[in-house]
Every structure is written in structure tokens, then in C-alpha cells.
């Protein structure tokens, strides 16, 4: 089995992995990072979205071996000093989650969106989240949350 080195939420791991092991299963089943859920098997739902070397990816669509040498940030690694990331805070403020299953992926995708568009329009937010499905919210409050999150991030940076 190939041995990989990967940093997840600031912790370095070295792990022997089957080549076929999906990154999301590495996170959930081997590293105990169950904050990242799985919602589909066709790369559609985006629930498993994480940041891989700073960019959003669907962790079901990356082999763990492909992440060798990379830095992964999951929903569990966003808080600093016990405070939620401004985007997490914005989702809370705008009631942008109900059952919460899509939320980790939705938050990670939203943070990624701001990386290249710090002040996105409503249209840009909707397009930017096209790869993340939510069944509860109808997306209205998610769009509001991302707008607020953009302001929050802007204010703290």
C-alpha cells in the first residue's frame, strides 16, 4: 500500500492507504474527521467539499493517494481560537441551514468563492454554489449568508 503524507486541519498524518481509498473515506473512516459528510456518488451534491491546497474540491472525487503531500482544510479546521470562521457565523446569522447535512460543503464552497471574488453579486453566489445541493433551505438564506460572510471576512481581514 502506498504511504502518503497529508496535512489535515493543521495536523500532519502519514498513512498507508489502498490506492482506491477516496479522500473523503480517508478523512471520515481513518482520520476521524467526520465533519465532512457524503451525500452522493456522482460528484453532484458537494456535501463533501473541502479545500485541497487552498482550492475547493469534492473529496469523494479525489483519491487519497492523489492528496499525497497536500494540505487539506475541512469544516472542522475553520474555527480559530474557538471562534467560528466569519462564513460559519454568517450561516448562523442568516439561518442558512436547517438539517445541516449540506452545510459543511456549502460553507467550504462559499469560502472558496470569496477567494477569487471577495464581493460577489447574488448571481455570482448562485453560480458559484452550483455544485452544492441543499434540500432544505431553497438557497435564499444561503445566498444572504454568503453576502454577509463576504462582509464579515472583509471586515476581519
Amino acid at each position, binding site marked *: 500500500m502506498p504511504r502518503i503524507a497529508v496535512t489535515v486541519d493543521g495536523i500532519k498524518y502519514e498513512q498507508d492507504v489502498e490506492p482506491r481509498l477516496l479522500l473523503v473515506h480517508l478523512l471520515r473512516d481513518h482520520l476521524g474527521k467526520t465533519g465532512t459528510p457524503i451525500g452522493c456518488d456522482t460528484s453532484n451534491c458537494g456535501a463533501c467539499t473541502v479545500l485541497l491546497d487552498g482550492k475547493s474540491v469534492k473529496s469523494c*472525487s479525489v483519491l487519497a493517494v*492523489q492528496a499525497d503531500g497536500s494540505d487539506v482544510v475541512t469544516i472542522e479546521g475553520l474555527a480559530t481560537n474557538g471562534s467560528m470562521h466569519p462564513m460559519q457565523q454568517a450561516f448562523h446569522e442568516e439561518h442558512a441551514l436547517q438539517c445541516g447535512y449540506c452545510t459543511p460543503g456549502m460553507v467550504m464552497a462559499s469560502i472558496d468563492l470569496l477567494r477569487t471574488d471577495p464581493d460577489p453579486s447574488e448571481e455570482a453566489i448562485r453560480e458559484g454554489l452550483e455544485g452544492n445541493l441543499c434540500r432544505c433551505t431553497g438557497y435564499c438564506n444561503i445566498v444572504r449568508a454568503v453576502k454577509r460572510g463576504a462582509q464579515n471576512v472583509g471586515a476581519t481581514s
Partner: protein
Amino acid sequence: MIPAQFDYVRPTSVQEASQALAGDDDAKVIAGGQSLLPLLRLRLTYPTLLVDVGRLSELQGVHDRGDHVFIGAAVTHDEVVRSGVIRDACPLVALAAATVADPAVRHRGTFGGSLAHADPAGDLPAVALALDAILVTSEREIPASEFFVDYLESAMHPGEILVGIKVPKLGPGWGFHYEKFHRTAQAWAIVGVAAAVRRSNGSIAEARIGLTNMGSVPVRARETEARLRDLDLGEAVRQACAHAAEDTSPPSDLHAQADYRRHLAQVLTHRAVRAAAGSP
């Protein structure tokens, strides 16, 4: 959700990758994995070996080479969309790449991978075809018109690796548009139209049109291209575009019947050509 077992190698050169592939008939190339992983998860394919070319330096980078742009096969869709060189010299590639799947998939999926996968429903094969791109493999150069052989089948033989794509620069006067028609934002194109149009003195001097998902391979709307030559913008353009589906054999599937796809090809070609010609 769980792929079947396979071996995995990450060679350090194209030559090494070719050797790895040559030794195993059931080996597959992986780069970003965005086409392959869904097939693996659903166990629709059972490769014995994955040869990861995603980090090979020969497959990276976007290079301005005078009369053409060389795009490394492992350049991601996201890099394509953000490349100043591509946006300046062959914007159609960037326009179409921006419509592929969603941002997270575009961060991993590669330009070369999309072409090598040879899915006629993919957005980029039609673009490569419309632009007369040349696909550079580990062994030879293959014109786009000869690259797409059948559904999910390219002209590359086992062991051959796509290294990059030469996209000719079309020079001044050209306008571009990719018109994608799909039912939801992340759904595959029911039909897509890649159009490049050169305007001269208010009329269309030349047009190149590639069609997505109108057959087992991407196709050119040759009849429409011919009829558009030296045509003034106006109702005649619509009439020319009504020939867009000629010589196509679109599929009938869950998402659309063939006759509807033919109709869409005409409507969307008209829209794409007008947009590429800068006509509102």
C-alpha cells in the same frame, strides 16, 4: 460508492508513464480524475492500474507560442478560465471551460482529461474541433478532426498519453461564444454550440461551429459554416443556422429525444453565431 481494487503509480516522466501503461492492457491514465472517479465509484470501470500523470511537468502550463497557444494536458479547467494567455488568444476555450460542471470539479478536472475522455456530451471536445486544435501526444500530433473516433473513444492507442493541446490563434476580427443548453446548472449539456465568427465590414466572413452532444463524437456544423460565409447579419443568418443539425445523429436519451436536439442545435447555433458576431 466504493471503487474496485487497482494499483497506482505516479511516474515522473511521460516516458515512464507510457511504459507503465504499455505493460498493462487494463491500465488507465488519471490526471484530475473528475471523469474517472465517478465511473470508479459506480464500478462502471475496473482498471487494474491507474497511472497518475497529473503532476508531470511536461503536462503543465499554458504557453504562448506565436501562432498558437500550447495548453498542457494537465492544466485544470480553472487554470484555463483564469489564464490571461488563453483569454486573449483563444477565449472560446476559456468560455467553454467556465461552463464545465462546477467550481470544485473545475479545480481538479483537466483540459487534456476532458478531451482524452472523448465524451461527446463534454463541452471541450466541440471547442477543440471548432478551433482545429492539434492534440499532442507522447508519440505524435493528431488534428482534432481525427482525434474523436467514437463515443468515449479517441484515436490514441494504449500507452499513448496526451501531453498537450495546440490551439491556433485565429487573429484579429474573430468573436467567440459557447452556448450551452442544460436543464440544471450542473447537468450535462443537452446540446452545446461552440462558435467562432470572423466579421468583416458588417458581414460574416468566416464561421466555425462545433456541436456538443449531437452524435457519438463532437461534430462540425459544416453546412451552416458554408452558408454563413460572406453573409450579412440578419434573417439570413437564421436561415443558415437552420442547417446546423445536418449530418448529425444525436442520441435519444433520458434528457432529450433526437428531434428536439436537432431543433435545439438550430436555435442555439443561431444564438451562438449572433453572440460571437457581437450582434445583440
